[in-house]
């Protein structure tokens, strides 16, 4: 399992899991699970388009993810956010099914694009993963405070001169980058599980932003490693392990919280809103 050809898999998936854990924290906080589900699937035609045009797959993915982010942002401004996300998703996915039907590797390509090909990563695949991951991490870290404020208190953020529209498009852009990076490795459907489940479990265990963030990254990396190991032993697809383990993790975190509250009469953790408020106010005593 730790053979030389598996080294790249371990490195790439760890980087992806860390990035997904951090960004997932904001996805859950902002309740943009639908956007996080829509973007990877809307990027799906990118790989097929690249194959048809004979360019690097990554450029195809980047092109479609940009298109998806712009469409999503514009349509969400015009009407119901969930309807917009759903329609962008299905439309680009349908374009993807058309493009794939034009290439000759239809069925196997569909399966690996949707569910990932984690056991076939080469050294050359590592560079784009590492570059994009560091870009996303720098972006998320430098925007940590405004992103947190805007996610928890949109009105307060406006009064501090943080534009909701700008934050939204930056957030979608970061999400898009993670998507384009992770999709060839873990598949369009698996990116979503990695984004939601660890962060949701972490936020139901801790209400302190930084603690929840660290917990989310730990859950995400742990889940990824276990999923690769299980997938290696059983030969079953990695998406199965990540999806079901995510659901298990979330329900056990909820049960743990419930039992702690009910049997040991510990107060339920204060909401993320309250504690991020404290954090923001504590950091800027002069302004508060």
């Amino acid at each position, binding site marked *: 399992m730790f053979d030389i050809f598996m080294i790249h898999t371990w490195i790439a998936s760890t980087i992806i899991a860390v990035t997904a854990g951090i960004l997932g924290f904001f996805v859950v906080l902002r309740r*943009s699970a*639908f956007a996080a589900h829509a973007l990877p*699937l809307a990027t799906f035609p990118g790989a097929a388009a690249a194959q048809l045009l004979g360019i690097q797959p990554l450029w195809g993915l980047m092109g479609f993810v940009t298109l998806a982010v712009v469409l999503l942002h514009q349509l969400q401004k015009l009407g119901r956010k969930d309807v917009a996300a*759903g*329609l962008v998703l299905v439309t680009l996915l349908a374009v993807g099914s058309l493009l794939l*039907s034009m290439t000759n590797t239809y069925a196997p390509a569909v399966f690996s694009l949707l*569910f990932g090909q984690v056991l076939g990563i080469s050294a050359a695949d590592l560079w784009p993963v590492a570059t994009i991951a560091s870009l996303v991490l720098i972006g998320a870290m430098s925007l940590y405070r405004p992103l947190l404020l805007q996610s928890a208190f949109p009105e307060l953020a406006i009064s501090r001169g943080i534009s909701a529209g700008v934050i939204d498009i930056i957030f979608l852009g970061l999400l898009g980058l993670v998507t384009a990076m992770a999709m060839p490795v873990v598949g369009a459907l698996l990116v979503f599980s990695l984004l939601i489940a660890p962060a949701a479990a972490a936020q139901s265990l801790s209400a302190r932003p930084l603690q929840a963030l660290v917990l989310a990254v730990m859950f995400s990396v742990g889940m990824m490693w276990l999923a690769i190991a299980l997938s290696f032993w059983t030969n079953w697809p990695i998406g199965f392990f990540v999806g079901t383990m995510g659901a298990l993790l979330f329900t056990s975190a909820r049960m743990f919280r419930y039992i702690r509250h009910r049997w040991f009469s510990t107060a339920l953790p204060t909401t993320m809103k309250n504690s991020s408020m404290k954090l923001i106010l504590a950091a800027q005593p002069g302004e508060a």
Partner: protein
Amino acid sequence: MLTWLAHILHWSFLDSGSVQTALLVGGSAAVVCAVIGVFTILRGYAFAGHALGDVSSAGGSASFLLGISPLAGFLGIAGIAAVSLEFLGVRRAREQDVATGIVLGAGIGLSALFLYLDTTTTNTTGTAVTVMFGSMFTFPASLRLPAMMTAAAALVMMAILYRPLLLSMVDPELATTRGISTRWVGLLHLLTLAAAVALAALSVGAVLASALVIGPAGAAVRISRRPGVAILLAMLLGLTAVWCGIWMAYESYYWFAGRAWPVSFFVVTIIFLSYLTSVPLQYVRRRRFVRAMPMAAYAGG
């Protein structure tokens, strides 16, 4: 050009049995999805509706393993997913997003496993494509009756739920005093939604099923604020998209030199374009009929 016209004029495509089945099954999916879609949009359940479609792909892929009808597979798993959504607290606004996401992730994981087992244990190829993106022209004629029965059952259910569901959306407290259990009404709505999604998943594919549920209804809700009118409009849009899509896919064989384009691509594209068209229409309507109390229309039924 002349050959196209000839095809359009004598409608040769209606003679084919598989086209008739596709028109019938796809059409009933469009009608049922339109009725349920309007309520789904108004309740803010678009994500849940989409998730039910994606999750039902696990049922579609399992049906190939078990050798049962794909419709039964889609229906079974979508029903289980609807109950799990309710159990995880999809009705509470704070929990909705995450609860839906967790059910969606688990369902997709199962689907990955079943599709993998399909390719390793059976001789079927292209199961992933059939389940995910649909294949309307390959329906057996034996599918007509169960599909129509599912559609009829869902429509009857919606007729029963129509007033209690509207009331519990507009004024949950009033609904409770009138003896309506919002919990049961919510669960029954989700189960009916699951039936509609299963039909849509069968027609346009599991990952594209939500196009039929949220697309026509989303456009209709923008154009009319009366639920009854919105439902009729959504039916019209949905039926147009599905039937035109089937016809265009059939004809595309002649347009693109013997290489037909997928039906689902045409259906989804028409739906997306009709949604985009509804955006300017909404502003025209607003300027002409300014209503101070938008929800008054719903309260009046």
